């Protein structure tokens, strides 16, 4: 019973931490955790099919795109 409230708090906290964090790689990992907790929240709100889609897109596809973009924008930076 308490687990859902802990998950809600984790979603809010990790969203805040993802944008305060200076290093972008850590920020994307925290964002992945937040998307996955959001998928679990969707399951507790009785929307299991949406939870599956959010888990795939938000926790696998979008962080993958972010990491590719981050790699292309820091590789070869000359400082």
């Amino acid at each position, binding site marked *: 019973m308490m687990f859902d409230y802990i998950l809600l708090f984790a979603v809010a906290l990790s969203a805040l931490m993802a944008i305060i964090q200076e290093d972008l790689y850590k920020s994307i990992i925290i964002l992945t955790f937040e998307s996955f907790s959001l998928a679990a929240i969707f399951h507790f709100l009785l929307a*299991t099919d*949406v939870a599956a889609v959010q888990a795939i897109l*938000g926790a696998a596809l979008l962080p993958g795109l972010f990491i590719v973009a981050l790699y292309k*924008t820091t590789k070869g930076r000359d400082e």
Partner: protein
Amino acid sequence: MEPFQVASFMTAGVLIVTGLWALLMMDNILKKIIGANLIGDGANLVLISIGYRPGGFIPEVMHHFHATATPSNYSHLLQFEEFASNASYSLPFALVLTNIVIGASTLSVMLALAVVLYKKYHTLSVQKMFEGDE
């Protein structure tokens, strides 16, 4: 209103405000895009919390959901009024599925634009990229 639903709306509010702040105030271009992602997540959470029914069940019917195959503790759900009054409201779930896909495609276009802008300016700072415009 059920406290879980209220807490869920408040979390969605925190997500939207955080995303909006990141989108408008952050200097790094990738942080702005993370903020855009968070705004979309907050809007989806609002939509799904609207459809929640406390103590209800997921309205997905298995294909052998008929009188001889249903376990006895679910047999009351074979009546339509019982089913409809205890299931969660599933229309917002269709809206959220569409919105997740729209959000993902918009985000991928924004990431591609960020990569191209980095190649021209060699910096991720929005201040330096947009300093000449009015």
